[in-house]
């Protein structure tokens, strides 16, 4: 609903652009504004129908006890109470938190490390950059299949290798703790190229002469890194953390394709829990309630972060 207003508003002020249509021509201005509305209209319609409308319906579904297309009866906040008092929900929330923290900072550390390394003179520099992008380029369905082949059963290559090295029989996807660790590592593997590219781009804008000056002043490599490099790329770092947080919280296939949320819910994140509650346990109300609570939290968080991004200034 709310997005209609901005579009109309566009017409009244900004429609015609920064230094727009020849001054004095009122007709030209309003025609320009009308054009702007027409140009933005399809996108507004898509947003309303495919993004805003489902949110409203989700809110309604979450206070009913329906089963998919059966609407069900109004049950008030019972679904929310059910969800918030269930240990499964809190377990999934905890896993989502761990998964997100490891996903964001793991991929950031790996990605930044590689970006820093690739910034130095290395033969075949560009080739490495292209090759290391592959985990991000490969469709998740394909890479999850490959990871499954690598770790799923005790006779798979990696458990077999671990056994030979004396670690005993490891069940990477059947042991709750190991499965959680494996899923997190898989997420880092998928995501680090994104961080690598973001950091590379930011590093490319840092002027090399700064380091020369710092070197002359006797700054060590570590000091140069923490006091020059990190502050200079802080804006980009901040944005990439935000985006990766959103990617991790909303991630479904990385987890579902590797473990299906198991064993014994050890790798069930909130999105996986919502999916299973709706489509496997056929409890639409509680499932949507979970998704809707996530949505509310993300709306608040992303609004605040969006403001922050605008404020953070690049040095």
């Amino acid at each position, binding site marked *: 609903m*709310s997005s209609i207003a*901005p579009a109309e508003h*566009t017409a009244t*002020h*900004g429609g015609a652009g*920064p*230094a*727009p249509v020849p001054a004095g021509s009122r007709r030209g201005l309003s025609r*320009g504004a009308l*054009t*702007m509305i027409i*140009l933005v209209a399809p*996108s507004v319609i*898509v*947003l309303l129908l*495919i993004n805003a409308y*489902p*949110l409203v319906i989700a809110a309604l*579904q979450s206070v009913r006890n329906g089963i998919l*297309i059966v609407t069900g009866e109004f049950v008030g906040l019972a679904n929310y109470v059910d969800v918030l008092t269930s240990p499964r929900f809190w377990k999934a929330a905890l896993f989502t938190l761990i998964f997100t923290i490891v996903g964001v900072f793991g991929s950031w550390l790996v990605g930044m490390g*590689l970006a820093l390394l690739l*910034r*130095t*003179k290395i033969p*075949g520099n560009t080739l*490495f950059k292209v*090759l290391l*992008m*592959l*985990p991000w*380029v490969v*469709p998740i*369905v*394909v*890479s999850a299949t*490959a*990871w499954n*082949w690598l770790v799923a059963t005790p006779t798979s290559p990696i458990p077999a290798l671990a056994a030979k090295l004396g670690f005993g029989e490891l069940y990477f996807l059947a042991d709750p703790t190991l499965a959680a660790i494996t899923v997190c590592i898989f997420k880092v593997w998928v995501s680090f190229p*994104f961080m690598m*590219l*973001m950091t*590379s*781009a930011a590093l490319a804008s840092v002027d090399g002469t700064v*380091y*020369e000056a710092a*070197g002359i002043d006797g700054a060590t490599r570590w000091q140069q890194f923490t006091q020059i490099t990190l502050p200079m790329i802080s*804006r980009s770092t901040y*944005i990439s953390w935000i*985006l990766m947080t*959103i990617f991790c919280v*909303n991630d*479904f296939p990385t987890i579902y*394709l590797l473990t299906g949320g198991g064993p014994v819910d050890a790798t069930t994140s909130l999105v996986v829990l919502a999916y299973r509650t709706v489509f496997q346990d056929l409890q*639409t109300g509680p*499932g949507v309630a979970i998704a809707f609570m*996530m949505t509310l939290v*993300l709306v608040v*968080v*992303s609004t605040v972060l969006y403001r922050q*991004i605008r404020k953070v200034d690049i040095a």
Partner: protein
Amino acid sequence: MTTAEQVAQATVTPKPKLRTTPSREPGTRGQWWRFAAMVVISVIVLVPVFATVLLAIRPSTTSTSTNLLTLENFTNVFANSGVLLWLSNSLGVTLATVIVSVVVAAPAGYVLSRGRSKAVSGYSLLLFVIQSLPVITAVIPLFVLFATIGLADNLLGLVIVYVGSTMSVATWMMAAYFDSIPHALEEAAWVDGCSVFGSFSKIVLRNSLPGILSTAIFAFLVAWNDYLVVLVFIKSSNIFTLPLGLQTFFQQNVTDWGAVMAVSVVMLLPPAIIFAVLNKYFSVGGIGGSLAGR
């Protein structure tokens, strides 16, 4: 049109300015050590990719072939499974998504780029918020809606959902690219009596091929790599796309890994080809880049 580099994908081809180490140290010192380290890292990182390709071109365990490498996994899956059907379904859905996304996002991006009112920045914030919402929240109500109007279990329904999920980022990416096109060009055209729409289509759009390509690649990847939406919406095997088709191989007790990996390679090729050919426009950082640039 080198502006492509600064825009949506500010990330992809950073200018090769490789002076990091203080210049009193020769930059070449230890470069072969770093090279060796990179080789080791790359090999470890790419093990799953190598495994996929190798298993696809090795004779499978049930095969009688004694060759070291073979294409029989591919001939098998093409002859005995629905892989051609899945591939054409996936390609159809993806291409439709790409076209509709670009056609809808480009004009909206123009408004976002040229409009300077509060409403426009409000719209930009709205796009950011929508982009951060879990797909699952939209998917459940849409499934119910589509089930009642016959769009669930329908490839068209899939396209509609994908267009919705590409919309915010696609709009930003187009807006970020349009920002790089000088306003003066349009103003000159307006003085000559050109309409706003005319300047948009004849001047801005015509000079935006790199931006359009980046956006198209983004939409392609969203549609091609999706798993959740297709899992929820598609049930009939005659309209399976590649991700669902691939899963059918796991339903038997014994998995024929050769066949699975052959299908995986089929699924991996389109994005890999795009990445190889259109590397310059490949905007993994598109979201971040366009956000940072605006």
